[in-house]
């Protein structure tokens, strides 16, 4: 992670976006291109937590999010023959598909406010009651600040920080330029900080 928050980062804890290394992922994708069912199941299980979380934060229910992820994987199966490693990678490609699926859901159902238990409201990685409380204290403020951000700011931060995509990856997934993504991320961080500090003063 670079000082301006625009470098590549890999967060640990919770669902790991890359449980296999690059070579293993390439091997897995090569098998997926050949319609290997085992490879597709592996890719689904590997990608599911974060794809679900992205969809769940934008859609109305767990079922809607599951639908979106399933649709994403089926489209990926349809289009895998056109995937190349010249882009920002397989994860960016998948998120690009998911993003379109979510946007289509918006067009069909209208943009909705997610209800129920969102992914980040779970006790992420807590090892006991005290740990849970500490984590909640640590995370509640930044989570509240994040919710104050615009959907665009939230998306760029989520794709970079949670999905673990590079700036190029976010650019590919969102159809923007990498430079614009870096600029958007920098501004989103500043706005996040503003809300975070504001919430801290309110306490």
């Amino acid at each position, binding site marked *: 992670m670079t000082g301006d928050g625009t470098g590549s980062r890999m967060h640990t804890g919770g669902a790991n976006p890359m449980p296999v290394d690059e070579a293993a992922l390439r091997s897995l994708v090569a098998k997926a291109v050949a319609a290997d069912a085992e490879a597709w199941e592996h890719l689904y299980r590997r990608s599911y937590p974060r794809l679900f*979380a992205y969809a769940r934060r934008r859609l109305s229910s767990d079922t809607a999010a599951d*639908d979106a992820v399933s*649709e994403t994987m089926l489209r990926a199966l349809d289009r895998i023959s056109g995937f190349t490693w010249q882009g920002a990678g397989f994860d960016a490609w998948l998120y690009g598909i998911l993003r379109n699926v979510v946007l*289509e859901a918006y067009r069909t159902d209208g943009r909705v406010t997610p209800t129920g238990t969102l992914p980040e409201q779970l006790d992420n990685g807590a090892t006991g009651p005290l740990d849970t409380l500490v984590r909640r204290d640590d995370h509640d403020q930044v989570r509240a600040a994040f919710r104050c951000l615009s959907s665009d700011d939230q998306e760029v*931060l989520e794709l970079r920080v949670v999905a673990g995509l590079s700036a190029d990856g976010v650019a590919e997934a969102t159809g923007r330029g990498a430079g614009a993504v870096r600029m958007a991320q920098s501004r989103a961080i500043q706005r996040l900080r503003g809300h975070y500090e504001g919430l801290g003063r309110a306490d």
Partner: protein
Amino acid sequence: MPTDDELLDQLAGALTPPDREPPVDRVSALRIAAEQRATTAGGAGAGGGAGAVPLSSRRSARAGRRRGRTGRIAAIAVGVAAVAGAFVLGGGLFRDADDPSPDDLLAGGTIEFETTLQAPDGDAKAQATGILTGIGRTVQLRTDDLAILPKGEFYELWFVGPDDSPRTPNRISAGTFHPDDDGRSFVDLTAAVDPALYPELSVTAEPGDGDPRATGTEVLRADIELLDS
């Protein structure tokens, strides 16, 4: 106050989801779709060919946009749940080597006809393959020539019988569909229709008016010539 990196680390910790398993039926649906792709495509690429392996999952996955995204996934889930249920009843999801695979249960069809539908007044064409299976008749329709319709409208495939007319219709719908974002209409549709009794295929563009009858414009048509069995 935390640095930017510390703030982002906090954000990552707050937002990163816990490990979570996908629903079993969704995984199974993807596996079946992949297996069917491997069987039908044989390396033929996206969309597959016209092999006689009409899996319900693939049909569901390709079914028309009229049902919507949720309906499509739900249909896959239902189809997979049905297959999984068969295995559960037969002794569990993890079948023995001698048990039939989902492919075995859903495949094994016989091609009844292959035809090319053509536009009455244009260049548009579509390839259609009719398959008799143990669960009904499936039509695999393949075309890149149909225009993407306005929202709410859709295409509908019909088996057309003798003396069909708007006033006295004699046709049975095989289902509705819509081209994908790339303009491809690669759909597998099912109808309980004997093509010997309904020997023409027609594709109409329907206005989405809620009327189950064919009220739209015919865009493709073909006679069905049954293959020798």
